């Protein structure tokens, strides 16, 4: 097939982007944090910046499973929503301090992810997407049918966090800039965590499973258990995103659990590029900016976003950042 001579020449000419890539990879966490610090001053509104922060975190967590393990879940809204609901219920109905409520939301989301993962990783191939979708819809209907806890179809309200105490300092959480930078700490934590996971031996194991499940099994990997761990970690990060969203909005819409919300996470990840660390965050940014811009023109902005997504699947499956890395940097 490919002669050795042919195989050498492109790698030689591609030395420069390779260096760019390895630099970007090496400093991906500091670079992300720098970008996040600047973000609110580059976007038209602070609220949009907070949304990018939240969904960027969710998409990066999701991509641990989709981009790196190769499992297309359509159920991650369940973890985002559960994280948000638990935080909201803990604050609003039990008066738990906000940081404990965040912790509880994350733990609750992680437990749910473990259970859903244990069920869905039993299945193979295309079943996985269908099963994750259906199990997440189960969570949606449970939330719908328990209005005394969740507010049912009206969503959950009544847990506004006005100010937060941090090492003796009192921060006004209603100020959008303060809110952004407090939540940014969580986003940075999530990015650092995901980066560490990807650099670890486990990160290598999930890539091996994505590349060739059968070979990974033959090498001695317990494929099911590795997938389950990846699923749980990914769901945990998404739950963290959910708790951030609850703190931001002081409201949890029921639709945050719907599979269309899962689909939105998938769309963001793919738009940015599932094969790269930054891709999902860039995808979240682009998706939310598009929503912001198009919804000014028309209430039917989803038809534009949907069409753009279809075109991406057809022509740019590597997404914006993935295509930039492979084509433009050549």
């Amino acid at each position: 097939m490919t002669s050795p001579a042919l195989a050498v020449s492109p790698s030689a000419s591609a030395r420069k982007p390779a260096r760019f890539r390895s630099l970007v990879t090496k400093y991906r966490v500091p670079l992300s944090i720098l970008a996040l610090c600047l973000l609110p001053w580059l976007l038209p509104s602070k609220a949009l910046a907070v949304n990018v922060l939240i969904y960027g975190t969710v998409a990066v967590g999701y991509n641990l499973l989709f981009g790196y393990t190769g499992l297309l879940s359509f159920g991650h809204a369940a973890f985002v929503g559960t994280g948000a609901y638990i935080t909201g219920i803990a604050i609003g109905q039990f008066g738990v301090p906000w940081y404990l409520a965040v912790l509880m939301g994350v733990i609750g989301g992680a437990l749910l992810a473990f259970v859903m993962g244990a069920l869905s990783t039993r299945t193979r191939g295309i079943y996985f997407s269908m099963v994750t979708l259906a199990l997440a819809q189960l969570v949606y209907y449970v939330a719908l049918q328990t209005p005394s806890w969740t507010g049912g179809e009206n969503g959950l309200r009544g847990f506004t966090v006005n100010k937060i105490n941090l090492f003796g300092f009192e921060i006004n959480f209603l100020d959008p800039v303060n809110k952004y930078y407090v939540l940014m700490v969580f986003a940075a934590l999530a990015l650092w965590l995901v980066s560490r996971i990807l650099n670890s031996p486990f990160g290598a194991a999930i890539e091996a499973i994505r590349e060739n499940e059968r070979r990974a099994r033959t090498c001695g990997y317990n494929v099911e258990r590795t997938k389950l761990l990846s699923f749980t970690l990914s769901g945990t990060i998404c739950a963290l995103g959910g708790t951030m969203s609850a703190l931001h909005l002081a409201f949890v819409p029921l639709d945050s659990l719907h599979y269309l919300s899962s689909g939105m996470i998938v769309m963001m990840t793919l738009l940015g590029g599932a094969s790269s660390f930054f891709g999902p965050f860039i995808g979240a940014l682009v998706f939310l900016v598009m929503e912001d811009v198009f919804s000014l023109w028309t209430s039917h902005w989803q038809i534009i976003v949907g069409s753009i997504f279809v075109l991406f699947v057809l022509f740019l499956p590597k997404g914006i950042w993935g295509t930039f890395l492979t084509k433009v940097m050549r």
Partner: protein
Amino acid sequence: MDTELILMQLFSGVALGAILVITALGLSIIFGMLGVVNFAHGALFMVGAYAGLWVASLTGSFWWGLLVAPIMIGVFGMAIEYVLIRPLYGRSIDDPLLLTFGLSYVLVEGVRIVFGSDGIPFPTPSSLTGVVDLGVGFFPIYRIFVVGVVFLVVVLLWLGLEKTKFGLIVRAGARDPTMMKVLGVDISKVWLLVFGLGVGLASLGGVLSGPMRSVNPEMGALVLAEAFVVTVIGGLGSLVGSIIAGLLVGVVISMTALFAPEMATIVMFALMAIVLLIRPQGLFGKLA
């Protein structure tokens, strides 16, 4: 609680199940032949319901809507296969799934633009209104009609797959597409027809369910989840599995609704979870 009520509820479960059967069959046929899970299946079910309503209001007859809409949307489905899905063969199995998901967004929003965001009532045709006394109780005529139509379609489908040359090609092609190419069968034409057939079945389900549910742009979302539950329980690609699981799910939903209405939808997903624990490949699915 008297027997009559339970029997009525049981029957209405069968009618609900019949719609699930026809929708899940469409999904399963497409998957069996093309290896594609159609995430736009629910949206196409919804588009089918709207198309039926539109044709019925143009012609003034429900029957034209029932007949024409599935054909119309089936042809539309072929166009989808030809233009959008065909370029994705040979790529990751996730790609057609992602594409059809994006497409469902476009379809739902498209219907909102044309027909508005609010639900539209779909009147039961006058010849099928009312109830009939079957000795054990009164049953709505329309629901009996739905069960009859689905039964007829399933029989026709079975005859078509078992007794015709086209059916032979479909069954053989699902097992070994490359062999079909070697034998000189233009498999891409079969894919086109099968996708159209599957989509046609979804939209027939949409038209039939119109008078039973209200027609709105979001109706496809629940239908998609239901169809997934049915195919996961029955076994993806198994037509017998779709039929039995569809009826089972319909009856279980109805019977739960009788005792604990708020649990009706939840119990369907719980049933799926149990099946996954015991038989991850579905009741009639084969191990990969």
